[in-house]
């Protein structure tokens, strides 16, 4: 069976939905961050697939450059997000997002 751009885009959509479900339905902040990483990876797969299949017989590299920038931002986001989680853990002794409601109105 020939694998084309639709296969990669649907794979990316499935991975994004799994990440979205986990990010919405989990209570542990570290697991939510892991699910956000899954969603970023799904977007990267879609970008690289477009970069490969947009022009026939050649690879147009703009999508791959975008994927590199997304990886940079994801690394920064993971570092700051985990630092915030560790700061929350220090003050409240758990990382349950339902109990971190200090700013709730």
């Amino acid at each position, binding site marked *: 069976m020939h694998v084309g751009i639709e296969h990669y885009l649907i794979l990316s959509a499935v991975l994004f939905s799994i990440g979205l479900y986990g990010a919405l339905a989990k209570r542990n902040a570290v697991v939510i961050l892991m699910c956000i990483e899954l969603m970023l990876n799904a977007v990267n797969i879609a970008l690289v697939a477009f970069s490969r299949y947009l022009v026939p017989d050649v690879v147009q590299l703009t999508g791959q450059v975008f994927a590199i920038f997304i990886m940079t*931002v994801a690394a920064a986001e993971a570092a700051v997000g985990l630092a915030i989680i560790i700061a929350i853990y220090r003050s409240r002794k758990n990382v349950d997002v339902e109990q971190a409601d200090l700013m709730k109105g």
Partner: protein
Amino acid sequence: MIELAFWILTLLMIGSAVAVVLLRDIFRAALLLILCFFAVAGIYITLNADFLAAVQVLIYAGAIGILLIFAIMLTRNLKEGSPFNKLNVPALLISLLVLATIVGVVVSTEWTTVTEASNAVTMPIDESTTTYVAKALFDSESGFVLPFEIASVLLLAALIGAIVLVRDRR
């Protein structure tokens, strides 16, 4: 050959991603997330993006994986694990809705390929991407030099921000 690799990597990736969401043990979930990152690197190789596959292994499977495992070890609560919250069913419905929308759009769109590329950098399929990625990033006409510099400032800001956040104030 590419087809077989694609299906094996897809099964591995979806299986480990589902396990990341469903497992109660956070540490095992993190290890399976790293497996998922490796599968994504394989998918990049099937898409002729070998430089990105190497970067994926180094940054995601290496750096972010280690960072996540450190955070889990510093914060984990053994008896609680990783439970679902009370929005479990609505979240499942919303993500299935998002999935159905994207799949519907992807299937119903006719993906045309352009015959003539714009001034963006292209490369033949059977070569290594590293030189061409460098050209695409730093080309003086269609390159991304300013975003590259901004990304380095962003990384510096994230570094300083993370240090300030976890610093002991006593």
